[in-house]
């Protein structure tokens, strides 16, 4: 299996939040937790750009490095997952993440943060695939079903690409070639840089 990657095409994203709600509705995420967000810069001015960001599933993931209890791990296909059973909600992963991906639902003792929640690339979690427990804790496991993540599949303008790195790069390269502009792929320099 190849390596899974996200890519948001900044020229196509129209800030419709389809990806955000697709993710929430698909995984039954509580209000207040955003596995994915759309950020707009220069709002209302020429040069307004929007971008949809979630966990980038970094190759050399800082969150894995800083987790004091090793709750975060990486699969062979590059997808970074968290075990909510292990996580203690310390919040270090949020501080280490360049993309603001880790989310912490509150409602635990003394309002402390609960276990970290983040984008799973629609790959569920460490529990048994398709089990009820996996569904409640992590949402759908679409990767095991052979389906692409909801956010990218439901993207209104196909700005958000997800899947095998080679395929994503091919699609994006073709697009950039067609429009002849030198758009960069946001976040790749940080997420996937080679050591």
């Amino acid at each position, binding site marked *: 299996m190849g390596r899974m990657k996200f890519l948001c095409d900044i020229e196509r994203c129209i800030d419709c939040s389809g990806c955000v709600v697709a993710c929430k509705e698909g995984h039954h995420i509580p209000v207040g937790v955003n596995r994915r967000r759309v950020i707009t810069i220069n709002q209302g001015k020429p040069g307004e750009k929007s971008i949809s960001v979630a966990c980038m599933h970094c190759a050399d993931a800082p969150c894995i490095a800083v987790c*004091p209890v090793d709750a975060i791990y990486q699969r062979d296909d590059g997808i970074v997952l968290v075990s909510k059973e292990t996580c203690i909600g310390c919040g270090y992963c949020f501080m280490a993440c*360049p993309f603001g991906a880790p989310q912490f639902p509150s409602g635990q003792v003394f309002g402390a943060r609960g276990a970290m929640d983040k984008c799973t690339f629609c790959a569920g979690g460490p529990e048994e695939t398709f089990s009820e427990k996996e569904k409640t804790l992590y949402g759908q496991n679409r990767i095991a079903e052979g389906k692409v993540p909801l956010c990218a599949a439901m993207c209104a303008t196909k700005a958000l690409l997800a899947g095998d790195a080679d395929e994503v790069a091919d699609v994006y390269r073709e697009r950039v070639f067609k429009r002849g502009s030198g758009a960069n792929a946001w976040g790749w320099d940080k997420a996937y840089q080679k050591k």
Partner: protein
Amino acid sequence: MKKLILPGCILFWAMATLAIAQSQGQLLTNFGPSPSTAAFHEINGLFTGDWQQYGQLFTELQSKIFSQIFLLVVTVVPLIFLLHYLVIGPMIFSHEGRQIYYFNLFARCIHWCAAISFALLVLTGLLIIFGSLVGGGVLLRSGRTVHLISAAIFSVSALFMLLIWAKDMIYAPYDFMWMLIMGGYLSKKKKPVPAGKFNAGQKSWFWLATLGGMVMAVSGYFLYSFQGSPDTLRLSAIIHNFLGAAMIAVFIVHLYMSLFAIKGAIRSMISGYKAEAELTILHSRFKF
């Protein structure tokens, strides 16, 4: 001449392209300002602050250095004292004779509140730092809760300690001397060391525990509440860890002194009385 043909061709082609581009440029406008590093940088800033500045630092510190420092603190410091105990040995004073009322009941209560909560803070704190050995989960989550409650108790106790002892803890000139001779702990002889009601070591520990404790409380609050910019959180975490390591180190010193280095020193914190023999040596400047 031949050498000029190729560059010439290229130049002509470039100019032609440019001319065509210009003639159409007005109409077939490109796609506005193309995304630049600056735009990405701005997006990054919106997400988690300037990751390059503290994010990277925090990641590097947290991934290796913090745990190593703590490992050092909890292994090397006790080892040094073990050596001290074996080589120099504890000081033994007679607990008979004149007893001087040293700590009143309130002070003792506050001390033990602070002591127990601090011990819990250290234990649960270390638990989180070496969480991977325990495997996280329920144990550590309750550990976090204990850490939180202890922090609250300790913060209040620390405030009271400041009220009770701050006056006695102001450094005096002779404290410098005490520092120079390391409080006399490096010799086996019982020579009077220059110290008031509290010696320079105790004073330092006091200020670290109270003022340092305040810093720990503030940075800890940020980590607990997550209110503040990502960079604030990162700085808080860095400070919390470094300061915590320092406090644990000194805490171990304090433990060693009260439990092992000076035999029976702990009694004064239970009964409130200290023996004259001990005071004349260790607190020679104290007027009783």
